[in-house]
């Protein structure tokens, strides 16, 4: 089975972000970057599918769009076990909307004719959650979202979707298909020294948007980025412990409505 995993490099989880001078994006100079969390789970799912499969022709290809720095994240994915990579070279990811990014990915993925395309369900920076489903549309493939587990069957796939309030849904779908993966379905693996050394000899093909023939003007334009207003409304409950506890229950029930 040939599996393509679309991954994104995002700023490190705990990074302190500052808005840039134009107010359109964050200052990137000082930041550390890492693999988007749900994409890491998508990669893990792909690697496990390949490892579980008895067929020797299994292949995992990672695709990522972004500037030069994306190379480190691609290497990490190769170190963890992906077989080769396609790096779509573009410095203007911020100016492209989800449709534009999906066009880039689709153009790179289509010639591979994969059996399965996996990607994280949303990115940690923009959190649009659309790229995967648009990608399915552009590739003309069926898709399923919020997937925690994938199993290969005789005819296609059985996937486990996460619903609200602890409910799950099991779906059968044919291949090829596109799945967007939810975090937490598997245990992630760590990068190893052997993986990094082996990754050095793995192929990373670099293509540009122009070479892919993609020139989609954005439909959605990012106007402004702002930091959320900090608001803290601490209330001190007076009285004895018993009175305070009663008051707390009251508030949790009727004001916050969590009980």
């Amino acid at each position, binding site marked *: 089975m040939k599996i393509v995993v679309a991954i994104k490099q995002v700023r*490190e*989880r*705990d990074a*302190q972000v500052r808005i840039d001078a134009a107010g359109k994006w964050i200052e990137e100079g000082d930041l550390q970057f*890492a693999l988007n969390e749900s994409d890491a789970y998508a990669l893990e799912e792909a690697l496990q599918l390949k490892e579980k499969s008895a067929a020797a022709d299994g292949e995992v290809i990672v695709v990522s769009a972004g500037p030069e720095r994306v190379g480190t994240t691609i290497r990490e994915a190769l170190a963890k076990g992906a077989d080769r990579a396609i790096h779509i070279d573009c410095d203007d990811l911020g100016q492209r909307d989800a449709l534009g990014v999906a066009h880039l990915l689709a153009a790179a993925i289509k010639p591979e004719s994969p059996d399965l395309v996996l990607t994280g369900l949303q990115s940690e920076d923009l959190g649009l959650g659309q790229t995967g489903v648009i990608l399915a549309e552009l590739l003309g493939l069926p898709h399923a979202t919020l997937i925690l587990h994938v199993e290969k069957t005789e005819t296609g796939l059985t996937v486990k979707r996460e619903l609200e309030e602890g409910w799950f849904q099991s779906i059968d779908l044919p291949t090829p298909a596109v799945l967007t993966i939810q975090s937490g379905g598997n*245990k*992630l*693996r*760590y*990068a*190893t*020294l*052997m*993986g*990094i*050394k082996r990754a050095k000899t793995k192929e990373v093909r670099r293509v540009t948007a122009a070479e892919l023939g993609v020139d989609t003007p954005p439909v959605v334009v990012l106007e402004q980025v702002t930091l959320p207003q900090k608001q803290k409304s601490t209330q001190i409950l007076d009285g004895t412990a018993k009175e305070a506890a009663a008051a707390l229950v009251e508030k949790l029930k009727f004001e916050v409505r969590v009980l």
Partner: protein
Amino acid sequence: MILLLPTLAEPQHFSLLEKLLFAGLAVASAYSFWRRFGLVLGKILQSKKDPSFHFFPIGKRVWDFVWEVLFQAKVIRERPLPGLAHAFVFWAFCAFALVTLNHCAVVLGLGFLSPEGQIGRLYFYFAAVFALACAVSILCLFVRRFLIRPKWLGENLSYQSGVIALLIFVLMATYLASFFVADASPSARTLWWIHTLALLTFLPLIPHTKHLHLVLSPATVFLSRGSFSQIPPLSGDEDFGLVAGTDLTRLVSLQAYSCVECGRCTEHCPAANTGKLLNPKEIVLGLRGYLNDLGPASAEPLLGKYNAQEAVFQCTTCGACEFQCPVGIEHLPILVGLRRGAVNTGSWADGQGTKLFLNLERGSNALGLSPAERDKFIEKAGLPLFDGTQEYCLWLGCMGGYDPKGREIVAAFARVMNYLGTSYGVLRKEKCTGDPVRRLGNDLLFQQLAEANLEALAQNKVKKIVSICPHCVRTIQEDWKEYGTPPEIEHHSEFLARYADKLPHQTSPGPSHLEKIVFHDPCYLGRYRNVYDQPRTVVALAGELIEAPRNHERSFCCGAGGGLAFLGEETGERVSHNRAAELVATGAQTIAAACPFCNTMFRDALAATGEAAPELMDIAQLAARGLPQSGAS
């Protein structure tokens, strides 16, 4: 005086039959020795060369050889009575070298020591003194092994050892008896033959039993890497640590064949003492078994049939085994090497371990917290930022920057430095030194962390570092060397001891009311850094220093080292509970620690023991306690 003493009776003439018989037996004995010894030597020499091995500086090697082999200092120091008995056997063997050569030479009429001559006579008396001491010693050792039966020697009695002891006793007894029989008498001839037969039986037994250490361990001690827990750098693109037989180096193979199975490593091992699978002696014997069965060219994994992965990952890297070993086996490079092999190739899959690695791949600290938490602590504690003008960079470490108790230690130490007027600052950003991943064998992550930190320190022009964490101190000073030149670093106990006379003595109403404080030696400060007195100097400022039964280089681990603080629940008894119970039993009102990891382990252990637990303080907190309140920042 000498003339009144009996003379050694030694037959001077041998028949042709006797000569032929002797020659035949000697050749058979030597052949049998070589058949096994040559095989062992071959396995050692066929092993991979040690890429980082250097003969020089040779002075230290010579000194270790003289001190540990010739003087038997380590053997005696760590187990005085059996050690001394062993030393007498060893010294007798040395003294007997000439006697034995002469003993064999007389058959051919080439004897060079004559019982009649002055020199020969003196030398035979000299050897007789040792023979007596040896005979008594070997009897005592026999009684110890077969009647007293210390559990460290293993559950099964070693009958080989019994045979060897008997042979040694026979050798000494026949020699001594020869002084009391008439020259050229049939008794003298009988004694000579018994002695000869014992000798020729003894020789081939050496390489077939653990007595191989007679031949190998002097070389093992001389050739050892030389410094404690020295983890060799990986070399080349295909070196991932100890994965298969092809990764065993000559030093590792030599050490595996040198083990004398005395069990000192096991006796002091925190894992073996708390019901875990790990037994350092068995790890070494497992490698020997692998070499015997498969050899150093095998691609079969080292972890599996011969050694269990579970056992290897139960090691706290406290180093008690390596410190104790009398034959120069370096357990830590072996244990860490096996871990490297498992982690660097991804064959170790442990939920908590993977979480630790992922935390450090993406984040900055082993606790998996946001760096913003560290920033908040720095601001709240009023710690100055390092700007290149201060004398010291105060290294917080993961525990000092993120752990509530670790932060208290840092704050207390900062108060003392403020009181002393020492200038210091903390780095704006700091990553874990990589200690837990270094000991767990993740070389990729360790290199990334070491390089990032070295770069940050160089950018900030840091010249001197002081830290409250012995793990940080060790890793920065020794382990980072593989990737650059770390700044000078010291542990806060060394800093505090230097200023002891400037710090207030916390005097009580009378000596009888002095607070009893027991000090726990952290492994990474004591055995790893050889710092024992400095923290005690600081403790003595605050009260009456008392010792736990296991102290100084015999201190018992808290259970946190080797990355184990971040792994899951232990099997068997918790190491921390074992040690905490020992510290509580001293009757001290206060337990003094000098490592934030020991501190956190004991905090949990003491909470589990219940009510009247002694107070637990770091030495920095003890020192800060005596400062005038105005000194507080």
